[in-house]
């Protein structure tokens, strides 16, 4: 019995040591002091493309721009998007451009905590320093909102945020954007957008038990999305088989209207309303060219 007790105590001590080590395991990269002049107009466009405005604005409940509070109901609990206005307490008004760069590209908060992947930072790894400067300039134009967003409402054990450091070690790939050789500029622009800011795979790729995307099933559709809906497959074979063309795909991303005359609903309707409908004709062409793998 005494042996058992000692074993149990040792186990508990080890467990505690692990938890404590996780808390102190440093994940914050070195400062990213970006000195480039940012273009707020270009940054706003990028924010539309990246879904910042869509996710961090509770539009359907009349929320102020970028004030957060949008609920994302998942298997892990309910996430609430944070307040990204210039308010120094409730928002990011006290941040530096380096804080912003590290948050967006590396998914680490100014005080070294990992963000939950509900924030699709892995996709934003491909932002250039200029992209970040432009985004930062745009975010400076957002009027401060002093109301903080709601705290995350997660189930155990996901409330233990440092556990994400293990998730990161297991699933996070440290890759930026690499254009594919032999493909056109338009195609590669589409690749940058789809695999980066537009983060289509965040919904359209199925995930494993730990919530990490299953790379081999990229864009093959996924079920059990927040709200209980499904995202259809959008890889090339599927799109072509269902009769999508460059023209109709672009049109759908701009207006929400599909070739059958239906108007896309659910979260995709929101993506279009708050994001893709703002994109340029060139970028919509690029996205469609990449997904349909068309070449002139």
């Amino acid at each position, binding site marked *: 019995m005494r042996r058992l007790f000692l074993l149990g105590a040792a186990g508990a001590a080890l467990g505690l040591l692990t938890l404590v080590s996780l808390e102190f395991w440093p994940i914050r990269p070195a400062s990213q002091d970006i000195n480039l002049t940012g273009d707020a107009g270009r940054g706003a466009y990028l924010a*539309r493309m990246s879904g910042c*405005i869509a996710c961090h604005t509770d539009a359907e409940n009349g929320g102020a721009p970028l004030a957060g509070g949008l609920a994302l109901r998942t298997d892990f609990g309910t996430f609430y998007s944070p307040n990204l206005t210039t308010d120094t307490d409730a928002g990011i008004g006290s941040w530096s451009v380096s804080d912003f760069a590290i948050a967006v590209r590396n998914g680490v908060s100014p005080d070294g905590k990992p963000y939950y992947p509900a924030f699709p930072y892995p996709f934003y790894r491909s932002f250039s320093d200029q992209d970040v400067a432009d985004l930062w300039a745009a975010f400076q134009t957002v009027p401060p909102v002093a109301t903080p967003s709601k705290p995350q409402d997660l189930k155990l054990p996901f409330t233990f945020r440092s556990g994400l450091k293990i998730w990161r070690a297991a699933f996070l790939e440290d890759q930026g954007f690499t254009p594919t050789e032999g493909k056109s500029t338009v195609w590669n622009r589409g690749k940058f957008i789809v695999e980066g800011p537009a983060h289509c795979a965040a919904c359209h790729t199925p995930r494993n038990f730990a919530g990490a995307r299953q790379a081999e099933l990229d864009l093959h559709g996924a079920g059990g999305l927040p709200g209980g809906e499904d*995202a259809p497959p959008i890889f090339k074979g599927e799109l072509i088989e*269902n*009769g999508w063309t460059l023209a109709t795909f672009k049109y759908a991303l701009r*207006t929400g209207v599909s070739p059958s*005359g*239906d*108007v896309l609903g659910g979260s995709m309707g929101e993506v279009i309303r708050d994001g893709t409908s703002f994109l*340029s004709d060139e970028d919509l062409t690029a996205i469609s060219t990449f997904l349909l793998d068309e070449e002139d």
Partner: protein
Amino acid sequence: MYVRITLAGAALASLTAVSVLAHSGATGIVKERMDGMSAMAKVVKSLSSMMRKEVPFDAEKVRLGAGIIQAHSGDNMLRLFPEGSDGGMSVAKPEIWEDWKKFEGYANDLGLLARGLAAAADNGLAMAGGASNTSTMMGTSSTSMMGTTTAMVPSPDMLAAMPTDGVFNMVAQACAACHTQYRLEKN
């Protein structure tokens, strides 16, 4: 084989919303409103082809189509959504009856915009170009961080003066307003 069927089914659903698969089993008032939606989808399909310049512009077709949409909107739509008619084959979400005033507003907005589309039928398409989102209700540009998405419907006079595809896009946004919040999206 089953994976292929599932994928094909999911793709079909993605193309035609849930309409084809769900409609085949629905009855009564659920079927009636699905039929109404299908009638409107047919119009949207036909007119969107015109907006993409795949077929010649035809103002009369626009007027006829707008009339069909108007006929299925407002009270004519609302009476097909009595309390408790969700569940079963229906893809209507219970939020419809929790937010009835909002739902009612959207159904009425659709009617107003359809009327506006008919009035704008002779205006033709806006100038072709890369201008993004110039024909929304919101008045937001792509270079601004601002802009909520709950916008008012412009007055009949304003609608009548807009390019046809501008109003058509607003009609589509009215459809999306309900579909994003009140329709269950399943593959």
